[in-house]
């Protein structure tokens, strides 16, 4: 039974015209209480957050008030925008249009709908600009673009309602900051419109409601309980779990057998590369010739839409997908979810599971396929958390300042901005309620001309001050800005053009691939893309040309992204399970054996203390500290310990972090950790060590892109080799030297301190585990250390080790041949 609870006040049910009731009845449904409450909220004009489990008619609840309002309102003679729907995913807008089209058609409602995303064709864009639909479905980026046009005030003036879907998925990141500013702007343009937020079940509804409502007033909350708990199990694979890594190869047959039992299955993986790889592996054993597809964000729009339609019409038995399919989409016939790899968070797992069996009162079914024993433990903890109703707590942080810069330029593109009004508008977005005047001035100065301390070239301007406020300095600047709107910074990408054969002259674009990956390809090299193996031919007209290659083992595109941090709740839970054999019962037998092996070979991590293991692996000394404290603590600890190591001459090479452990590679052995794992490492001067770290340079690259210092793609400009390698690192180095207090550097430092490191929690932890450290030196890596060691994404240390490695490369460049050659080279000159 569904039950509605109200946190703030008793909500009334709104009036729904008979026509609508009849329609619901004809579908064999009835209008649910909370759907009526949304109608009432609309009548009262209250911003409202609707939290409901998947499959409960949540989307319809968001749109029902608008449908009724347009139905009962005066005949719309001039077309004007009534409702704006904002979705985090492009695919979702197509899906919503499909689902809304039916009641609109059946009821004969005088409603026009339009989709505006990056996929929308120029012809439709233009039409929407002149004749707005009643309901416009869009993404945050496309909305911001619409807001940058000069006609934005007129275009949005008629707005009555904004529906933000899947609010939980982006409210707590930069994309959420960005969206909150767009919402603030809409409030200025159409002060009386209502905001509706739709969200899956979350830990802290109040915070989400604050975010939605803005600084002035939090939104009301309608929370629908009554999920049917899902059926969850961990796969019992035929073969052994690999000890580390994230490949599902060992379980392909098991996965295939599960697909055979389902009508339609979605196989979720964590990265695009994993998707391509698993898809290949499944087809290799696809004896029954099942229709199995692959889906991820790098595929072209046509490919994605084709797959979506095949699933929707029940013609696909399974699709291997990244998170691109994990939200909202109503796939009626999906009856099985397979989750490959660790779920990383309870909410994320629930979201994915929710893709199956879209009826609220029947349980969804999901099978978890961990790819190593530690992930198996994580899966078991997640299943238990779901059973007990736990949800991850999201961190609502302060809005990022780089996003403000982009916003200011966006504002200036559409018309003059006055400082005071702009600041007020920005502060009305809840992530920015604390934005200070001084910071704002610096951000505006950067938006204007870079805001540098020394100005030796003053002709450059992005914004132009006039007596009535700032305006964009030129059309070129506006164009440049519009091409770079957004907060999702990705590596530069090239289009992939599929040629029928090496001799073909023409081909068609099937998607995009990272430039970084392409640089390492030589003609003839094969890679998996869009579900087939392609051979690389070359780059022509800014696209990678490739033709189908005979099925060989491909190199897999190395997509970045997909490195999802684990929720701290799961990390804690995993430690608890590991530390005590009593808690192992729910684990697959293999995993229990693995843990016993750990116990015999080394130690189990103590629930209160910390286990550190040192061993020699190939040519390096490795120290693994099993903190179970999450990435931010491990990152901070990594910087501090390596700094201390550098001082002690241990020559750290690099470190890697997982949610569970910190792994440091050194050139000299670590024999004693008493002065490494101690609170006094916090006294090390971290400032310089971090400022020069690649980690901060990486975040600077993203900040520089969002703030418009560099761009993802230069409009109409073909980049030459030299420009490709001209990196933001060079800019960073010069800025640090000549303008160390520059606003962008400050943002990069603050972001590192707040989002990448957690010094406060580290301090607390170091005190807690003092005198409870177990240090073991081992002949080789322990079972528990192997997953940590196989983690990718090393943080290189800029220290003595670097010089030593260059020296070694120089001295024994492939077995000493090198020095002789240098010698020969020199000798030949002497003669």
């Amino acid at each position, binding site marked *: 039974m569904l039950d509605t609870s109200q946190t703030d006040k008793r909500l009334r049910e709104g009036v729904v015209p008979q026509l609508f009731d009849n329609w619901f009845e004809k579908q064999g449904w009835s209008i649910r209480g909370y759907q009526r409450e949304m109608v009432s909220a609309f009548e009262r004009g209250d911003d409202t957050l609707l939290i409901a489990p998947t499959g409960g008619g949540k989307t319809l609840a968001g749109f029902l008030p608008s449908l009724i309002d347009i139905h009962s309102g005066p005949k719309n003679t001039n077309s004007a925008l009534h409702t704006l729907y904002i979705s985090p995913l492009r695919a979702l807008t197509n899906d919503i249009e499909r689902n809304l089209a039916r009641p609109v058609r059946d009821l004969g409602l005088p409603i026009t709908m339009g989709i505006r995303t990056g996929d929308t064709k120029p012809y439709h864009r233009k039409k929407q600009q002149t004749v707005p639909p009643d309901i416009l479905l869009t993404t945050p980026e496309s909305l911001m673009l619409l807001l940058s046009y000069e006609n934005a005030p007129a275009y949005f003036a008629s707005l009555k309602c904004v529906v933000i879907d899947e609010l939980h998925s982006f409210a707590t990141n930069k994309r959420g900051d960005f969206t909150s500013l767009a919402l603030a702007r809409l409030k200025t343009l159409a002060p009386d419109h209502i905001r509706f937020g739709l969200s899956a079940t979350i830990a802290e509804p109040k915070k989400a409601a604050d975010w939605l409502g803005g600084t002035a007033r939090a939104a009301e909350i309608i929370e629908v309980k009554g999920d049917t708990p899902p059926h969850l199990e961990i796969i019992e694979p035929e073969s052994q779990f690999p000890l580390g890594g994230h490949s599902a190869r060992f379980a392909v047959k098991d996965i295939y057998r599960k697909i055979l039992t389902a009508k339609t299955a979605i196989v979720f993986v964590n990265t695009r590369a994993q998707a391509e790889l698993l898809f290949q592996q499944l087809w290799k054993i696809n004896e029954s010739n099942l229709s199995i597809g692959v889906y991820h964000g790098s595929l072209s729009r046509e490919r994605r839409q084709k797959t979506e339609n095949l699933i929707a019409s029940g013609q696909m038995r399974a699709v291997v997908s990244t998170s691109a399919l994990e939200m909202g989409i109503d796939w009626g016939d999906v009856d099985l979810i397979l989750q490959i790899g660790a779920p990383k968070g309870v909410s994320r797992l629930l979201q994915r599971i929710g893709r199956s069996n879209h009826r609220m009162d029947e349980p969804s079914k999901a099978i978890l396929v961990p790819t190593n024993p530690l992930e198996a433990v994580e899966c078991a903890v997640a299943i238990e958390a779901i059973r007990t109703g736990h949800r991850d707590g999201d961190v609502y942080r302060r809005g990022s300042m780089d996003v403000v810069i982009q916003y200011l330029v966006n504002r200036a593109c559409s018309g003059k901005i006055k400082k005071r009004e702009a600041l007020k508008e920005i502060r009305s977005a809840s992530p920015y309620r604390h934005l200070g005047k001084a910071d704002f001035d610096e951000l505006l100065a950067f938006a204007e001309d870079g805001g540098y301390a020394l100005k030796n070239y003053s002709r450059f301007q992005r914004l132009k001050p006039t007596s009535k406020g700032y305006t964009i300095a030129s059309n070129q600047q506006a164009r440049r800005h519009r091409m770079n709107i957004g907060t999702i910074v990705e590596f530069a990408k090239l289009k992939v053009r599929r040629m029928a054969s090496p001799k073909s002259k023409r081909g068609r674009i099937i998607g995009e691939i990272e430039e970084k990956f392409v640089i390492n390809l030589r003609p003839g090299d094969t890679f998996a893309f869009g579900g087939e193996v392609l051979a690389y031919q070359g780059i022509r007209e800014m696209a990678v040309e490739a033709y189908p290659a005979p099925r060989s083992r491909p190199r897999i595109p190395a997509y970045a992204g997909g490195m999802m941090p684990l929720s701290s709740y799961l990390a804690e839970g995993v430690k608890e399970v590991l530390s005590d054999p009593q808690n192992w019962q729910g684990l697959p037998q293999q995993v229990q054996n693995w843990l016993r092996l750990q116990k015999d070979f080394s130690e189990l991590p103590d629930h209160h203390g910390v286990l550190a293991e040192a061993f020699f692996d190939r040519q390096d000394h490795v120290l693994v500290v099993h903190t179970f404290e999450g990435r931010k603590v491990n990152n901070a600890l990594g910087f501090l310990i390596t700094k201390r190591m550098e001082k002690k001459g241990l020559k750290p090479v*690099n470190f890697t972090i997982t949610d569970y452990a910190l792994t440091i590679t050194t050139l000299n052995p670590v024999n004693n950790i008493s002065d490494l794992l101690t609170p006094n490492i916090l006294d090390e001067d971290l400032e310089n060590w971090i400022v020069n770290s690649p980690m901060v340079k990486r975040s600077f690259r993203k900040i520089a892109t969002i703030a418009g*210092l560099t761009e993802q793609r230069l409009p109409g400009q073909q980049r030459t080799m*030299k420009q490709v390698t001209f990196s933001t690192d060079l800019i960073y180095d010069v800025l640090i030297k000549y*303008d160390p207090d520059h606003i962008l550097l400050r943002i990069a430092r603050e972001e590192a301190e707040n989002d990448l490191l957690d010094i406060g929690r580290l301090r607390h932890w170091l005190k807690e585990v003092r005198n409870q450290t177990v240090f073991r030196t081992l002949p080789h890596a322990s079972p528990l250390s192997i997953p940590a060691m196989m983690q990718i994404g090393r943080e290189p240390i800029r220290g003595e080790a670097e010089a030593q490695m260059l*020296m070694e490369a120089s001295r024994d460049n492939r077995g000493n041949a090198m020095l002789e050659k240098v010698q020969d080279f020199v000798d030949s000159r002497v003669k």
Partner: protein
Amino acid sequence: MSIPELNKTRLEFLTQAGQIVLDYRKAAFLPQCETLLVADLHFEKGSYLQANGLAPLPTYDTADTIERLTDLIAIYRPKRVAALGDSFHDTAAGDRLSKTDFNTINRIVESVSDFVWILGNHDPDIPIGLAGMQEDHMECGKFLLTHLPTNPIKGGVNICGHLHPKIRITTRRRTQIRPCFASSSARIILPSFGAYTGGLNIDHSAISKELIGERCYFAVGRDGIYALSG
């Protein structure tokens, strides 16, 4: 015979044209004619990108390049400095050069007996009012100093710029990408000196076709120079 010393800030050795010193600060020195060599300064590249890329880029690159060149002159106290072309990023660079930077460059030029601007493809002219000689090429004994790779006389060595060589050094633990000197018996290509200059991998045909026979690369580290075979 001299053996290259490893892991030092400088590397001194004898080529078929004579003695040369390679410095990890991306410069070379010819002891015989007391000449300091730098290539591809690309002054005002930042302001060029700012104007053409419409981006609010910081333009401290010229100041930084000047500062590092001044340091080198103080260390080597050369009679002559030769900038091997592409000293200015574009022909309008002089218009964007700040008064301070303009004066500093002139002071540097006047601080040595000879300052030679070898002209490159980016800078067929040197901004009006700047001191120093302008040359298409220069000779120092059997060394031929040019911007583009140019063949020397028999037994000579061409020292040039233009190509911005970079080398990828993959050790088992990590890959490092470093600017480098790229050389074969008759040619040494200098790394680019400008603060905002990127590089081209030594495997690129533009570089590899200029090196005949046995190659040697000298990678520039943060604190030293390292010899690597081809």
